[in-house]
Structure formats: structure tokens, C-alpha cells
């Protein structure tokens, strides 16, 4: 060790809150529980991680000897691939388990599956599950650090973090921005995590969708609800579309996809109501012609593919920051 003190003089370029020095929890279960300083720490660390993707050798030795298990009980291409790439770029040993090929199909319970995996001593478990709260349950019985990669309709923290990072890159800040989130609000964990994060950072967040897809108590999430898309989009700095999640809909929430598109679909005309430097986001997978017009998805305001690139850097930051506390054996957050 040299005698240099670790400081942050030349660190954050656009910090709004003073970054925390560490995350308080050893798990990342949701945005709930993170304060503005912790969010800023993750976003600042992401900036450093992003540069690694531009190197000839896109790999650093940081997590050598650490094992990360990706446990996906729900289908996912983007998120799982993103975590796997992030883990490999940090030199962790990784393996991914998809439930279709696991003992879950033989009737094993979630807790038994995870206890068996834990017996092989992984350091971190990245988990996606269809039931809200599943990672929270595991965090109480596991020694490994748990990272929530999406639980039911509850939270998807790394998505909200990569969204925030992408917004901050374009706008230089989060505080004071008008963000319109349009789409299937009822089934969206992305909405919940984004609402919590953007509110903590001081943005003004509008939620727009059909009344049948408006969750009860949206105001408690700090959202301004509306069923008129023009009201949400007017003067927005950011327009975020959410996918219509047919697979979670057990019933009829709107008459037809065509009618949904006519009333809520993001078209070039509607987008002209927003600020001239608006950015359009979508967590994917997109349904073109349902929540978003192809013109907009591929248009000049779209940052949808940047979101995907930033996802890897955000996940590297989270893995790095949690690795420091991954070997604490008590407290259980």
C-alpha cells in the first residue's frame, strides 16, 4: 500500500447527491432501501465500468475466484446475458441455471433448490422469479449475496439503475426532469423500481396507461397518474414505454391491441409534444406497433440500444460494490 489516501476529487462528473462510500446492505433486493447517496455511488461506479467495454481486452481481474450463480425461474434473454457478460468481464466464475432444465420441474421447492446450490458455496446469486418477494425470502436464509434480477410485479432494480444511468448520461442530472412512463403499469416491476429511484433522485414522474392497468395506490409511489397520453408526454424530458405483458394478463384489460395503440401507442406525432431533446426509452422486449411505433423505436430520439449497453456496466458496478460485503455471515439485511 502506498500512503495515498483514497479520495474522490476527480471522480463523479455530475453527482447530484454526494455519493455514499459503500452500500449498506450486502444484497440488492430492490431500489427500496437505497438512498440518494447509494444510488449515486452505483451510477458513478458504472461510469468507470463502462470504459472497460471500449478496451481491446474487455476484462479486469477483480472478481477472480468468486462464483456467481444466475438462477432464472422466468425466461429472460437480455437480463441474463447482461449479467453473464458483466460477471465474465469482472473475471468471476459463473453458471446459469434456467428452470426448464433444473430440478424445479421435478417438484423441488425454491428454498430446497437454493439451499442445494448454496451447499456448493457460491458467493453471489443473481435471481429472477415470477413471485414478488422471492429474493427477499432467500436473503433471509442464504449466506450468499442476493441480487434481484426481477421478482414478479415487484422490483427490477438493475433495470431502474441502468435507466437512470442512461438518463444521466444524456441530461447530466436526474433532479427536476419530467419523466413520462407509458404502458402496462399494473404488471410492471420496471415501473415500481423506476418510480422509487427517480423519486429519490428528485425527478417528476408521470404514469400513463388505461385505467384498467393503473395499479391501486400509484400516488403512494410518488407518481402522477393520468389516462391521457398527451398530458404525460407534454414537455417531457424522458418518455419511457412499458411492454404490454400479455403473459401476466388473466383477463381483458382493453378491447384490442389496435385500440391500445390508437390511444397510447408512442408515435412520432405524439412525441412532438415532448421537449425537443426528449429521449425515448424501453426496457424491452418491445412490441412494435403496440406500445411503440417502429418510427419512434428506430428514430433519432431512441436510446433503447444504449440502455442495453449500459446494462452491462451497471451490473458490473453492482457486482463489484456488493462483493466487498459478500462474506459477512450475519445481519441478513
Amino acid at each position, binding site marked *: *500500500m*502506498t*500512503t*495515498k489516501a*483514497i*479520495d*474522490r*476529487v*476527480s*471522480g463523479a462528473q455530475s453527482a447530484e447527491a454526494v*455519493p455514499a*462510500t*459503500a452500500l449498506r446492505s450486502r444484497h440488492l433486493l430492490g431500489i427500496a432501501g437505497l438512498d440518494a447517496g447509494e444510488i449515486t*455511488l452505483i451510477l*458513478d*461506479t458504472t*461510469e*468507470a*465500468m463502462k*470504459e472497460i467495454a471500449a*478496451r*481491446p*481486452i474487455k*476484462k*479486469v*481481474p*477483480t*472478481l*477472480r*475466484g*468468486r462464483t456467481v450463480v444466475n438462477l432464472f425461474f422466468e425466461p429472460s434473454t437480455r437480463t441474463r446475458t447482461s449479467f453473464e457478460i458483466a460477471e465474465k468481464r*469482472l473475471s468471476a466464475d459463473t453458471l446459469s441455471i434456467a428452470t426448464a432444465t433444473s430440478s424445479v420441474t421435478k417438484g423441488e421447492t425454491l428454498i430446497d433448490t437454493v439451499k442445494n446450490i448454496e451447499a456448493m458455496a457460491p458467493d453471489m446469486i443473481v435471481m429472477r422469479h415470477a413471485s414478488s418477494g422471492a429474493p427477499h425470502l432467500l436473503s433471509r436464509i442464504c449466506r450468499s449475496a442476493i441480487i434481484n434480477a426481477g421478482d414478479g410485479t415487484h422490483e427490477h432494480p438493475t433495470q431502474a439503475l441502468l435507466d437512470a444511468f442512461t438518463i444521466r448520461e444524456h441530461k447530466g442530472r436526474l433532479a427536476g426532469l419530467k419523466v413520462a412512463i407509458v404502458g402496462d403499469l399494473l404488471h410492471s416491476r420496471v415501473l415500481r423500481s423506476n418510480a422509487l429511484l427517480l423519486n429519490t433522485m428528485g425527478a417528476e414522474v408521470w404514469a400513463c396507461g388505461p385505467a384498467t392497468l393503473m395499479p391501486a395506490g400509484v400516488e403512494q409511489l410518488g407518481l402522477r397518474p393520468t389516462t391521457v397520453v398527451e398530458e404525460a408526454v407534454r414537455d417531457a424530458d424522458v418518455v419511457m414505454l412499458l411492454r404490454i405483458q400479455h403473459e401476466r394478463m388473466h383477463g381483458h384489460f382493453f378491447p384490442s391491441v389496435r385500440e391500445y395503440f390508437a390511444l397510447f401507442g408512442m408515435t412520432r406525432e405524439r412525441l412532438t409534444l415532448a421537449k425537443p431533446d426528449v429521449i425515448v426509452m424501453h426496457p424491452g422486449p418491445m412490441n412494435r406497433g403496440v406500445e411503440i411505433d417502429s418510427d419512434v423505436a428506430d428514430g433519432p430520439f431512441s436510446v433503447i440500444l444504449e440502455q442495453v449497453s449500459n446494462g452491462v456496466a451497471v451490473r458490473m*458496478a453492482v457486482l*463489484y*460494490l456488493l*462483493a*466487498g*460485503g459478500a*462474506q*459477512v455471515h450475519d445481519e441478513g439485511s
Partner: protein
Amino acid sequence: MPQVMDADRMSRALTRIAHEILERNRGLDDLALVGIRTRGVPIARRIARALKEINGDEVPTGALDITLYRDDLMRHAVGPQPVVRRTEIPFSIDDRKILLVDDVLYTGRTIRAALDALIDFGRPRAIQLIALVDRGHRELPIKADYVGKNLPTSLRQSVQVRLEEIDGVDEIVIEGEA
């Protein structure tokens, strides 16, 4: 808290190092400076400025953060992770002679990490090491090519390099009992 170098002597030490660089490399062709964060970066910029004053040529200058390459990162069971900052090397290091710059050379572990990090950016023709202070106590077989000041210290002491750009003052002080 004895001061061992003031602003004037620091400036002269850096100018001397600039002359040594020119002499040893017979000019500035294919040279580039890479400062190790935090204080290696402003020192690298100052050396670049000194080289330009002597020779008139710009030397490309970058910044390297070695946090992700540290050998003590995952050894502590508990505790916050060190802050990671951006590495900025806006030029190819392939076939260049890289002048790696740090403020204090001590155990050599920072330099080991920096060498690993640099080599992930390409294959430099050579890497030379510049340290403003060499305080001894090496734990690895690493030696500086250019030294601002050799400073014999005891293990109980700490050496603080303060720079105008970061700390508002140029000085080097030794703290603690000999």
C-alpha cells in the same frame, strides 16, 4: 510534520525528470505519459508541460485507475469497496514507450497492478516508471527509472504528497515517528 519538499523544489525536480526523459529516449518520438490516479495524473500533466517547454512537442497523456487490479481487493472480509474511477487512455499504447507516473513508490504493489492494467490496453514497446518520491520498503522487484526524491523512511511513517490541483498546495511531508 517535517516538510521535505516545497513547491519550488517540486517544480525543479519535475523539470529535471523531463530533461532525463529526453536524454534517455533521445527525443519524444512514440512517448506517452500515463498517470496513476489520483496524484499521478496531475504529475503526469506537469511533466508533459515541462517536456513541451523544452522540446515544443505535445506528449499524449492518460489517466489510469488501478482499483480493479489491486491484489488486496477481495482479501478483507468486510468493508467498503474502494471507489473506482475512470481510466482514460485516449491513444493506442501499442508500440509506444509508456512513461508510467505515480506520486509515491513504496511496496511496488500499485505499480504491479498498473502494469497489469496497462498491458490490457495493448503491447507497449517499453514501460518506464517515474516516481516523485521513492520511500523504499519494496515488496516486489520493481524499480523506478526516474525519481524526484529518494526519501528513506521507517515503516511507521507516512509520506504525503500534496498537489496544487487537488490539495491547493505543492509540498511533500513526512508524518509519524522515525
